[in-house]
């Protein structure tokens, strides 16, 4: 049985070229970038080069790039770090109900620290409303954190419009672009973004590395204490091999962005079409028109997530419900609950399929066939014999 990976929104396979770029660094470039000798300088060169690549990829300045251990740390730093540093300007933070837990739990932490947090709702298509944001903004608002692309539904949020809206407001605009980066064009200056999160392992890079873009002049408190690395914003000796791998992944992502977008759209359409041709009953959650190429979230009426995912896995197919687990069992998705309301059947019968490097024009239709077989077996009421 061929295993098929359809969970690229969770993590991606590393591109071989990334691994190749990293391999010599581990042994040969071991210097500490902060050291004042040749070994340190060599390491620092790699670090600087990578920082330049990161900056260029989002039209930022290299001084505005802070390497972190990944998306979670970048989100935490952006939200908590800026809120704590700007408390004198106000006590209000705005985010949305459908954020990734790295942002959501950071906002909840701020609530515990006495901040007022507004969690904006989303509509049935999974998109946040500009009017609701306008209504929520006050003179006290210091940070607005709204993700670029939702990780469960793939819905693209109106980031540029939000940036524009906040242009003449004191609040910093943070966006978690973990799912968007590498597929969508991002220009932080044009979009009015003050803080932006990117993670390497979602773009075929190594795990344990990401960056936070923080616009020049953004006042932010560090959450970690130590040396003077990353302009004192993120102390700790830099992970140079990972940074180099990240750089390679970004270069590759920028190189053939359009082509990959087209490929993933083709996969998505093939997948949906094949399900339909197989006579499976399903609906796509959100709005295909406004979704990113790599993610589709599908509801299968009359099923439940746990049974589906277990069956998929036993059939060699990796997908997910996109949501957190407690004691290994799947909780209803907070994103779908935000879209459809608590208790809606779709919160417990929807699966996220996400496309990427692992997929081919052969294994995507094959995956759809496996899904169709399983869904039909489960909803047909037949007791199956393998």
């Amino acid at each position, binding site marked *: 049985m061929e295993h098929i990976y359809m969970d690229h929104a969770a993590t991606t396979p590393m591109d071989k070229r990334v691994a190749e770029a990293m391999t010599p660094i581990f042994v040969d470039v071991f210097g500490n970038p902060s050291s004042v000798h040749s070994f340190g300088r060599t390491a620092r060169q790699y670090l600087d080069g990578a920082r330049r690549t990161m900056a260029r990829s989002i039209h930022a300045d290299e001084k505005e790039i802070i390497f972190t251990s990944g998306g979670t740390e970048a989100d935490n730093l952006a939200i908590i770090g800026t809120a704590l540093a700007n408390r004198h300007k106000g006590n209000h933070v705005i985010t949305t109900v459908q954020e990734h837990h790295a942002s959501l739990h950071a906002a909840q932490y701020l609530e515990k620290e006495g901040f007022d947090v507004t969690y904006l709702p989303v509509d049935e298509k999974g998109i946040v409303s500009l009017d609701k944001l306008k209504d929520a903004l006050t003179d006290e608002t210091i940070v607005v954190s709204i993700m670029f692309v939702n990780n469960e539904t793939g819905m693209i949020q109106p980031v540029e419009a939000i940036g524009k809206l906040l242009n003449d407001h004191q609040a910093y605009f943070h966006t978690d672009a973990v799912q968007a980066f590498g597929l969508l064009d991002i220009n932080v200056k044009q979009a009015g973004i003050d803080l932006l999160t990117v993670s390497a392992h979602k773009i075929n890079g190594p795990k344990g590395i990401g960056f936070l873009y923080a616009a020049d002049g953004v006042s932010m408190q560090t959450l970690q204490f130590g040396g003077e690395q990353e302009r004192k914003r993120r102390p700790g000796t830099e992970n140079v091999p990972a940074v180099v791998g990240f750089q390679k992944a970004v270069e590759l992502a920028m190189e053939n962005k359009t082509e990959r977008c087209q490929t993933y759209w083709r996969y998505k359409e093939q997948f949906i079409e094949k399900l339909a041709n197989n006579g499976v009953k399903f609906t796509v959650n959100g709005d295909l028109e406004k979704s990113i190429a790599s993610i589709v979230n599908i509801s299968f009426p009359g099923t439940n997530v*746990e*049974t589906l*995912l*277990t*069956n998929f*896995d*036993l059939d060699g197919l990796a997908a997910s419900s996109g949501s957190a*687990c*407690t*004691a*290994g*069992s*799947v909780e209803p998705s907070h994103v779908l609950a935000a879209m459809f309301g608590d208790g809606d059947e779709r919160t417990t019968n929807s699966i996220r399929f996400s496309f990427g490097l692992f997929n081919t024009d052969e294994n995507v239709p094959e995956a759809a066939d496996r899904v169709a077989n399983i869904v039909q077996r*489960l909803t047909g009421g037949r*007791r*199956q014999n*393998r």
Partner: protein
Amino acid sequence: MKNNQDTRVVVGMSGGVDSSVAALLLKEQGYDVVGIFMKNWDDTDEDGVCTATEDFDDVVRVCNQLDIPYFAVNFEKQYWDKVFTYFLDEYKAGRTPNPDVMCNKEIKFKAFLDHAMSLGADYLATGHYAQVRNNNGTFEMLRGADSNKDQTYFLNQLTEDVLERVMFPLGHMTKQEVRAIAEEHGLVTAAKKDSTGICFIGERNFKEFLSEYLPAQPGTMKTLDGVEKGKHDGLMYYTIGQRQGLGIGGSGDPWFVVGKDLEDNVLYVGQGFDNEKLYSNSLIASDVNWINDRTEETFTCTAKFRYRQKDSTVTVTQMANGNVHVAFNEPQRAITPGQAVVFYDGDVCLGGGTIDKVLKHGQQLAYVG
């Protein structure tokens, strides 16, 4: 017949040593083994800590040691509706429920069995100490070989069509052997303590737990002759034959609960372990399940009225309404409504029912409910 490697067996794994070894034995026999953890109860405390997380973590570690896939399934809602609601209702009615029997009937060998079948399983296996025997196409349930651990008492509501799809890999073993195998293979659960008490209460104080769900109504404690002996904390906290927690001092024999009056909220007590008020001659049971067809109207067999009790000889008479009348050869002490009566023919478990009424010389003992 499928060979073992094409036979998928879903093992219900709790994170304990028994189900770990059950999975190990099946894996060694070459089956296509899938480990599944059931989450039936949300006991997350204020700090977000929940024992289910730790138990699942043990399942993960054992499954990784055995190199079998593992998953979890959530039956919290079904458990609440089918087991916990029953549990509370029985206490409200002044009875002593047996949630383990109900859990096996409604969750483990119904909802969970269905789930296993939906995953293409041929069998569901658990770490219970019981045995399935295929007697020329008739599937019977036998006591576990370890008489000290035999769990057929809790499995009395299983039916033949369920047993046909069930495996009890530990049924022929002793607990000692199971632990030895776990140790020999270095399973991380080898030294894990056996779980005690009712699963959703765990190590917590039973009284405290129950009071979170049912209002306690304190009342008076009396002898059956009407002599007041003190106060009780609420009838639900007491079970027939109980000695602890009565707080009646004085000289003479210790005091025991002999009955309850739900209407007047009175707890009846009597003196002496062998107080004659605790003894009865027969009972009537409802929700009767016969594992294999049982047509004889009256027959003699043995029975247990509590877990781990020695068998007693009884004469069972099936009544028209599906209930059974169970007459004891010897008078029995502290028969408790709500508990299970389970029938045996030698090592074969015939089935069982819920004790509803307790009779003495043909008269219902109104004071025991």
